[in-house]
Protein backbone atom coordinates (compact mmCIF):
# COMPACT_ATOMS: atom_id res chain seq x y z
CA UNK A 1 0.00 0.00 0.00
CA UNK A 2 1.49 3.40 -0.95
CA UNK A 3 2.35 5.96 1.73
CA UNK A 4 -0.33 8.43 0.53
CA UNK A 5 -3.00 5.73 0.60
CA UNK A 6 -2.02 4.78 4.11
CA UNK A 7 -2.10 8.41 5.29
CA UNK A 8 -5.51 8.94 3.65
CA UNK A 9 -6.89 5.83 5.35
CA UNK A 10 -5.41 6.79 8.71
CA UNK A 11 -6.91 10.30 8.71
CA UNK A 12 -10.27 9.05 7.40
CA UNK A 13 -10.52 6.60 10.27
CA UNK A 14 -9.48 9.32 12.70
CA UNK A 15 -12.29 11.57 11.45
CA UNK A 16 -14.87 8.79 11.70
CA UNK A 17 -13.82 7.95 15.25
CA UNK A 18 -14.36 11.52 16.56
CA UNK A 19 -17.81 11.96 14.97
CA UNK A 20 -19.73 10.33 17.85
CA UNK A 21 -18.20 10.90 21.26
CA UNK A 22 -18.65 8.12 23.80
CA UNK A 23 -20.98 9.08 26.66
CA UNK A 24 -19.19 8.28 29.88
CA UNK A 25 -21.07 9.28 32.97
CA UNK A 26 -20.70 8.29 36.59
CA UNK A 27 -23.72 8.94 38.73
CA UNK A 28 -24.28 8.46 42.42
CA UNK A 29 -26.92 9.33 45.00
CA UNK A 30 -26.20 12.27 47.29
CA UNK A 31 -28.02 13.59 50.33
CA UNK A 32 -29.41 17.16 50.41
CA UNK A 33 -26.58 18.02 52.82
CA UNK A 34 -24.06 17.30 50.06
CA UNK A 35 -25.83 19.59 47.57
CA UNK A 36 -24.73 23.25 47.15
CA UNK A 37 -26.95 25.68 49.10
CA UNK A 38 -27.86 27.65 45.95
CA UNK A 39 -29.27 24.53 44.31
CA UNK A 40 -31.31 23.67 47.39
CA UNK A 41 -32.64 27.23 47.54
CA UNK A 42 -33.79 27.06 43.90
CA UNK A 43 -35.71 23.86 44.53
CA UNK A 44 -37.25 25.23 47.73
CA UNK A 45 -38.67 28.22 45.83
CA UNK A 46 -40.66 25.79 43.68
CA UNK A 47 -42.42 24.38 46.78
CA UNK A 48 -42.45 20.88 45.33
CA UNK A 49 -44.53 18.44 47.40
CA UNK A 50 -43.15 15.28 45.75
CA UNK A 51 -39.91 13.64 46.82
CA UNK A 52 -36.76 15.13 45.27
CA UNK A 53 -33.93 12.72 44.51
CA UNK A 54 -30.48 14.25 44.34
CA UNK A 55 -27.59 12.83 42.33
CA UNK A 56 -23.99 13.78 41.76
CA UNK A 57 -22.72 13.37 38.21
CA UNK A 58 -19.27 13.19 36.72
CA UNK A 59 -18.99 13.20 32.94
CA UNK A 60 -16.86 14.48 30.07
CA UNK A 61 -18.21 18.00 30.79
CA UNK A 62 -17.23 17.99 34.47
CA UNK A 63 -19.03 17.59 37.80
CA UNK A 64 -22.63 18.59 38.42
CA UNK A 65 -25.67 17.92 40.59
CA UNK A 66 -29.05 16.79 39.43
CA UNK A 67 -32.45 16.94 41.07
CA UNK A 68 -35.11 14.56 39.81
CA UNK A 69 -38.72 14.94 40.75
CA UNK A 70 -42.31 15.07 39.57
CA UNK A 71 -43.96 18.46 39.40
CA UNK A 72 -47.48 19.14 38.16
CA UNK A 73 -47.65 15.67 36.65
CA UNK A 74 -44.40 15.94 34.67
CA UNK A 75 -41.00 14.33 35.26
CA UNK A 76 -38.39 17.03 35.77
CA UNK A 77 -34.63 16.90 35.93
CA UNK A 78 -32.80 20.05 37.01
CA UNK A 79 -29.08 20.22 36.49
CA UNK A 80 -26.87 22.44 38.63
CA UNK A 81 -23.18 23.29 38.35
CA UNK A 82 -20.71 22.28 41.03
CA UNK A 83 -21.39 25.64 42.71
CA UNK A 84 -25.17 25.20 42.61
CA UNK A 85 -26.02 27.45 39.68
CA UNK A 86 -28.92 26.13 37.61
CA UNK A 87 -27.68 25.04 34.19
CA UNK A 88 -30.73 23.54 32.57
CA UNK A 89 -34.17 22.10 33.20
CA UNK A 90 -35.31 18.98 31.38
CA UNK A 91 -38.85 17.67 31.10
CA UNK A 92 -39.66 14.21 29.81
CA UNK A 93 -42.19 14.15 26.99
CA UNK A 94 -43.42 11.59 24.49
CA UNK A 95 -42.08 12.05 20.96
CA UNK A 96 -45.60 12.09 19.52
CA UNK A 97 -46.47 15.05 21.74
CA UNK A 98 -43.90 17.24 19.98
CA UNK A 99 -45.15 19.62 17.25
CA UNK A 100 -45.41 17.76 13.93
CA UNK A 101 -42.94 20.12 12.29
CA UNK A 102 -40.33 19.28 14.93
CA UNK A 103 -41.04 15.52 14.70
CA UNK A 104 -40.51 15.62 10.92
CA UNK A 105 -37.31 17.67 11.18
CA UNK A 106 -35.81 15.31 13.78
CA UNK A 107 -36.76 12.17 11.85
CA UNK A 108 -35.29 13.65 8.67
CA UNK A 109 -31.95 14.35 10.38
CA UNK A 110 -31.83 10.91 11.97
CA UNK A 111 -32.71 9.14 8.71
CA UNK A 112 -29.57 10.66 7.17
CA UNK A 113 -27.44 9.21 9.96
CA UNK A 114 -28.95 5.78 10.56
CA UNK A 115 -30.14 2.83 8.52
CA UNK A 116 -32.70 2.17 11.26
CA UNK A 117 -33.46 3.92 14.54
CA UNK A 118 -35.99 3.87 17.37
CA UNK A 119 -36.47 6.78 19.74
CA UNK A 120 -36.58 5.63 23.36
CA UNK A 121 -36.74 8.86 25.37
CA UNK A 122 -37.31 12.54 24.68
CA UNK A 123 -36.69 15.48 26.97
CA UNK A 124 -37.34 19.17 26.39
CA UNK A 125 -34.24 21.04 27.50
CA UNK A 126 -34.60 24.62 28.72
CA UNK A 127 -31.65 26.89 29.38
CA UNK A 128 -31.59 30.47 30.58
CA UNK A 129 -31.28 32.64 33.65
CA UNK A 130 -32.46 31.37 37.03
CA UNK A 131 -35.49 33.68 36.85
CA UNK A 132 -36.46 32.53 33.34
CA UNK A 133 -36.12 28.86 34.27
CA UNK A 134 -38.15 29.35 37.44
CA UNK A 135 -40.91 31.01 35.39
CA UNK A 136 -40.76 28.22 32.80
CA UNK A 137 -41.24 25.53 35.43
CA UNK A 138 -44.16 27.44 37.00
CA UNK A 139 -45.75 27.91 33.57
CA UNK A 140 -45.43 31.70 33.65
CA UNK A 141 -43.41 31.89 30.45
CA UNK A 142 -42.67 29.82 27.35
CA UNK A 143 -39.01 29.47 26.54
CA UNK A 144 -37.97 27.76 23.32
CA UNK A 145 -36.63 24.32 24.21
CA UNK A 146 -33.95 22.18 22.67
CA UNK A 147 -34.68 18.49 22.22
CA UNK A 148 -32.63 15.78 23.89
CA UNK A 149 -33.24 12.30 22.53
CA UNK A 150 -32.05 8.87 23.57
CA UNK A 151 -32.42 6.39 20.76
CA UNK A 152 -31.13 3.08 19.50
CA UNK A 153 -29.70 3.35 16.03
CA UNK A 154 -28.05 1.18 13.46
CA UNK A 155 -25.30 2.48 11.24
CA UNK A 156 -22.92 0.05 9.53
CA UNK A 157 -22.63 -2.34 12.49
CA UNK A 158 -25.02 -3.50 15.22
CA UNK A 159 -27.53 -1.32 17.09
CA UNK A 160 -26.08 1.10 19.66
CA UNK A 161 -27.58 3.59 22.09
CA UNK A 162 -27.11 7.29 21.34
CA UNK A 163 -28.00 10.62 22.89
CA UNK A 164 -28.70 13.55 20.58
CA UNK A 165 -29.31 17.22 21.27
CA UNK A 166 -31.35 18.98 18.61
CA UNK A 167 -31.74 22.76 18.20
CA UNK A 168 -35.00 24.65 18.79
CA UNK A 169 -36.24 23.96 15.26
CA UNK A 170 -35.32 20.27 15.41
CA UNK A 171 -33.19 20.32 12.28
CA UNK A 172 -29.67 20.94 13.62
CA UNK A 173 -27.83 18.35 15.65
CA UNK A 174 -25.88 20.17 18.36
CA UNK A 175 -24.33 17.06 19.88
CA UNK A 176 -24.19 13.32 19.37
CA UNK A 177 -23.01 10.97 22.10
CA UNK A 178 -22.76 7.21 21.92
CA UNK A 179 -23.42 5.25 25.12
CA UNK A 180 -20.73 2.86 26.27
CA UNK A 181 -22.21 -0.66 25.97
CA UNK A 182 -24.11 -1.83 29.03
CA UNK A 183 -22.94 -4.95 30.81
CA UNK A 184 -25.62 -7.26 32.20
CA UNK A 185 -23.88 -10.60 32.00
CA UNK A 186 -25.10 -11.46 35.48
CA UNK A 187 -28.68 -11.29 34.15
CA UNK A 188 -27.91 -13.31 31.03
CA UNK A 189 -25.71 -16.20 32.16
Amino acid at each position, binding site marked *: MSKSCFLFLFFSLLCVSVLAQIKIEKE*YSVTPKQVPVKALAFMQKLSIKNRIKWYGEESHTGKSFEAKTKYQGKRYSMEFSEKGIIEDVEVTIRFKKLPLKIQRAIKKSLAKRFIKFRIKKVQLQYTGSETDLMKQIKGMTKLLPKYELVLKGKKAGP*YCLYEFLFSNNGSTIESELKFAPDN*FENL*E*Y
Partner: protein
Amino acid sequence: MRVGIVCFFLLLGMVSYGQSDVSVGWLPKINLSSKLGATTKWVNSIETRELVYKDRIRFLHKLVDVSSLISIKTDINQSLNLGYILRIEDRELVHRLFQQYNIVHNIASFKLGHRIGVEEHFPEKSKPFYRGRYRVSVQKALQGTKLDVHEFYIKFGHECVYHFNDKSLEIRFSPYVGYQASKKDKVEVGVEYRANDLLADFNTHRFWFRTTWYISL
Protein backbone atom coordinates in the same frame (compact mmCIF):
# COMPACT_ATOMS: atom_id res chain seq x y z
CA MET B 1 -31.22 -6.58 54.45
CA ARG B 2 -32.25 -7.54 58.01
CA VAL B 3 -35.76 -8.42 56.78
CA GLY B 4 -34.24 -10.68 54.14
CA ILE B 5 -32.08 -12.52 56.66
CA VAL B 6 -35.04 -13.00 59.03
CA CYS B 7 -37.21 -14.32 56.17
CA PHE B 8 -34.48 -16.72 55.15
CA PHE B 9 -34.18 -18.26 58.61
CA LEU B 10 -37.96 -18.35 59.03
CA LEU B 11 -38.25 -20.23 55.75
CA LEU B 12 -35.43 -22.56 56.78
CA GLY B 13 -37.16 -23.20 60.08
CA MET B 14 -40.54 -23.79 58.43
CA VAL B 15 -39.32 -26.26 55.88
CA SER B 16 -37.13 -28.07 58.39
CA TYR B 17 -39.97 -28.55 60.90
CA GLY B 18 -41.93 -31.15 58.97
CA GLN B 19 -40.78 -34.40 57.45
CA SER B 20 -38.90 -32.50 54.74
CA ASP B 21 -35.75 -33.33 52.90
CA VAL B 22 -33.50 -30.31 53.47
CA SER B 23 -29.97 -29.80 52.24
CA VAL B 24 -27.63 -26.82 52.41
CA GLY B 25 -24.52 -26.20 50.37
CA TRP B 26 -22.24 -23.84 48.52
CA LEU B 27 -22.10 -23.12 44.79
CA PRO B 28 -18.95 -21.21 43.87
CA LYS B 29 -18.71 -20.14 40.21
CA ILE B 30 -16.40 -18.24 37.89
CA ASN B 31 -17.81 -16.88 34.65
CA LEU B 32 -15.37 -15.70 31.97
CA SER B 33 -16.55 -13.90 28.85
CA SER B 34 -14.57 -12.66 25.89
CA LYS B 35 -15.67 -10.75 22.81
CA LEU B 36 -15.35 -12.58 19.53
CA GLY B 37 -16.88 -9.85 17.39
CA ALA B 38 -19.25 -6.88 17.45
CA THR B 39 -22.24 -9.07 18.32
CA THR B 40 -20.75 -12.32 19.65
CA LYS B 41 -19.17 -13.41 22.89
CA TRP B 42 -17.64 -16.65 24.06
CA VAL B 43 -18.55 -17.40 27.66
CA ASN B 44 -16.95 -20.10 29.75
CA SER B 45 -17.68 -21.01 33.33
CA ILE B 46 -16.84 -23.49 36.01
CA GLU B 47 -19.11 -24.17 38.95
CA THR B 48 -18.86 -26.69 41.75
CA ARG B 49 -21.41 -27.94 44.24
CA GLU B 50 -20.28 -28.51 47.82
CA LEU B 51 -22.76 -30.03 50.25
CA VAL B 52 -22.60 -28.72 53.81
CA TYR B 53 -25.72 -30.17 55.43
CA LYS B 54 -28.01 -33.08 54.67
CA ASP B 55 -29.55 -34.82 57.68
CA ARG B 56 -26.42 -33.73 59.52
CA ILE B 57 -23.50 -31.35 58.99
CA ARG B 58 -21.09 -32.77 56.47
CA PHE B 59 -18.65 -31.51 53.88
CA LEU B 60 -19.02 -33.30 50.60
CA HIS B 61 -17.99 -32.36 47.08
CA LYS B 62 -20.92 -33.25 44.85
CA LEU B 63 -20.17 -32.19 41.29
CA VAL B 64 -18.44 -29.88 38.83
CA ASP B 65 -20.12 -28.16 35.87
CA VAL B 66 -17.87 -26.90 33.10
CA SER B 67 -19.73 -24.79 30.59
CA SER B 68 -19.03 -23.10 27.29
CA LEU B 69 -21.46 -21.03 25.25
CA ILE B 70 -21.64 -18.64 22.36
CA SER B 71 -23.76 -15.55 22.98
CA ILE B 72 -25.11 -13.76 19.93
CA LYS B 73 -26.53 -10.26 20.40
CA THR B 74 -29.71 -9.98 18.37
CA ASP B 75 -30.58 -6.48 19.58
CA ILE B 76 -29.24 -3.92 22.08
CA ASN B 77 -30.93 -5.71 24.96
CA GLN B 78 -31.48 -9.22 23.56
CA SER B 79 -29.24 -12.20 23.00
CA LEU B 80 -29.30 -15.84 22.02
CA ASN B 81 -27.09 -18.28 23.93
CA LEU B 82 -26.10 -21.68 22.53
CA GLY B 83 -24.04 -23.81 24.84
CA TYR B 84 -22.76 -27.02 26.27
CA ILE B 85 -22.22 -28.13 29.88
CA LEU B 86 -20.14 -31.08 31.00
CA ARG B 87 -21.17 -32.27 34.46
CA ILE B 88 -18.92 -34.57 36.42
CA GLU B 89 -20.89 -36.13 39.26
CA ASP B 90 -19.99 -39.32 41.15
CA ARG B 91 -17.60 -40.23 38.34
CA GLU B 92 -20.42 -40.08 35.82
CA LEU B 93 -20.35 -37.64 32.93
CA VAL B 94 -23.52 -35.86 31.88
CA HIS B 95 -23.48 -33.95 28.62
CA ARG B 96 -25.92 -31.08 28.34
CA LEU B 97 -26.82 -28.88 25.40
CA PHE B 98 -28.80 -25.73 26.00
CA GLN B 99 -30.42 -22.92 24.08
CA GLN B 100 -31.50 -19.72 25.81
CA TYR B 101 -32.94 -16.39 24.84
CA ASN B 102 -32.44 -13.27 26.98
CA ILE B 103 -34.22 -9.94 27.08
CA VAL B 104 -33.10 -7.20 29.48
CA HIS B 105 -35.17 -4.06 30.04
CA ASN B 106 -34.20 -0.81 31.69
CA ILE B 107 -37.19 0.36 33.70
CA ALA B 108 -36.48 3.54 35.67
CA SER B 109 -33.52 2.57 37.85
CA PHE B 110 -34.18 -1.17 37.59
CA LYS B 111 -32.91 -3.75 35.15
CA LEU B 112 -35.39 -6.52 34.44
CA GLY B 113 -34.03 -9.63 32.80
CA HIS B 114 -35.97 -12.51 31.25
CA ARG B 115 -34.30 -15.75 30.26
CA ILE B 116 -36.13 -18.61 28.60
CA GLY B 117 -34.41 -21.82 27.62
CA VAL B 118 -34.49 -25.51 26.85
CA GLU B 119 -31.93 -28.18 27.73
CA GLU B 120 -31.11 -31.64 26.50
CA HIS B 121 -29.30 -33.86 29.03
CA PHE B 122 -27.36 -36.97 27.96
CA PRO B 123 -26.15 -38.92 31.00
CA GLU B 124 -23.67 -41.74 30.41
CA LYS B 125 -25.57 -44.33 32.42
CA SER B 126 -29.21 -43.44 31.85
CA LYS B 127 -31.67 -42.20 29.25
CA PRO B 128 -31.61 -38.63 27.93
CA PHE B 129 -33.96 -36.17 29.57
CA TYR B 130 -35.16 -32.71 28.71
CA ARG B 131 -35.97 -29.57 30.66
CA GLY B 132 -37.43 -26.16 29.98
CA ARG B 133 -36.76 -23.12 32.13
CA TYR B 134 -37.79 -19.54 32.61
CA ARG B 135 -36.02 -17.06 34.86
CA VAL B 136 -36.87 -13.48 35.74
CA SER B 137 -34.29 -11.30 37.50
CA VAL B 138 -34.50 -7.76 38.82
CA GLN B 139 -31.43 -5.71 39.57
CA LYS B 140 -31.09 -2.30 41.20
CA ALA B 141 -28.01 -0.18 41.81
CA LEU B 142 -27.80 0.90 45.43
CA GLN B 143 -26.08 4.21 44.70
CA GLY B 144 -27.67 6.29 41.96
CA THR B 145 -29.88 5.25 39.06
CA LYS B 146 -27.20 3.23 37.29
CA LEU B 147 -24.45 0.90 38.41
CA ASP B 148 -20.94 2.34 38.28
CA VAL B 149 -17.56 0.90 39.27
CA HIS B 150 -17.06 0.43 43.01
CA GLU B 151 -20.79 0.39 43.66
CA PHE B 152 -23.10 -2.23 45.13
CA TYR B 153 -26.33 -3.56 43.76
CA ILE B 154 -29.05 -6.00 44.72
CA LYS B 155 -30.56 -8.65 42.52
CA PHE B 156 -33.56 -10.96 42.94
CA GLY B 157 -34.14 -13.98 40.77
CA HIS B 158 -37.01 -16.38 40.36
CA GLU B 159 -36.69 -19.42 38.12
CA CYS B 160 -39.00 -22.28 37.15
CA VAL B 161 -37.44 -25.47 35.80
CA TYR B 162 -39.74 -28.04 34.23
CA HIS B 163 -38.59 -31.62 33.74
CA PHE B 164 -40.43 -32.93 30.64
CA ASN B 165 -39.73 -36.63 31.28
CA ASP B 166 -40.79 -36.68 34.95
CA LYS B 167 -43.34 -33.90 34.50
CA SER B 168 -41.96 -32.29 37.64
CA LEU B 169 -41.48 -28.64 38.42
CA GLU B 170 -38.67 -27.07 40.42
CA ILE B 171 -38.82 -23.48 41.61
CA ARG B 172 -35.91 -21.33 42.68
CA PHE B 173 -35.77 -18.01 44.54
CA SER B 174 -32.51 -16.15 44.91
CA PRO B 175 -31.64 -12.80 46.47
CA TYR B 176 -28.11 -11.48 45.86
CA VAL B 177 -25.87 -8.61 46.76
CA GLY B 178 -23.35 -7.70 44.09
CA TYR B 179 -20.36 -5.42 43.73
CA GLN B 180 -19.04 -3.91 40.49
CA ALA B 181 -15.34 -4.24 41.29
CA SER B 182 -14.08 -2.80 38.00
CA LYS B 183 -15.39 -2.17 34.50
CA LYS B 184 -14.60 -5.75 33.67
CA ASP B 185 -15.61 -7.72 36.71
CA LYS B 186 -18.28 -8.06 39.33
CA VAL B 187 -18.86 -10.34 42.29
CA GLU B 188 -22.18 -11.61 43.57
CA VAL B 189 -23.06 -13.29 46.83
CA GLY B 190 -26.47 -14.72 47.57
CA VAL B 191 -28.68 -17.56 48.64
CA GLU B 192 -30.67 -19.73 46.30
CA TYR B 193 -33.65 -21.67 47.58
CA ARG B 194 -34.77 -24.62 45.45
CA ALA B 195 -37.93 -26.63 45.92
CA ASN B 196 -38.15 -29.83 43.90
CA ASP B 197 -41.16 -31.78 42.69
CA LEU B 198 -43.49 -28.90 43.35
CA LEU B 199 -46.38 -30.49 41.49
CA ALA B 200 -46.18 -33.86 43.23
CA ASP B 201 -44.71 -33.45 46.65
CA PHE B 202 -43.47 -30.14 48.08
CA ASN B 203 -41.00 -31.91 50.29
CA THR B 204 -37.49 -31.39 49.02
CA HIS B 205 -35.84 -28.10 49.89
CA ARG B 206 -32.34 -27.02 49.08
CA PHE B 207 -30.50 -23.91 50.12
CA TRP B 208 -27.39 -22.97 48.20
CA PHE B 209 -25.04 -20.22 49.22
CA ARG B 210 -23.88 -18.80 45.87
CA THR B 211 -20.73 -16.88 45.13
CA THR B 212 -20.15 -15.88 41.51
CA TRP B 213 -17.34 -13.91 39.92
CA TYR B 214 -18.13 -12.49 36.48
CA ILE B 215 -15.05 -11.53 34.48
CA SER B 216 -15.01 -9.88 31.04
CA LEU B 217 -11.72 -10.38 29.25
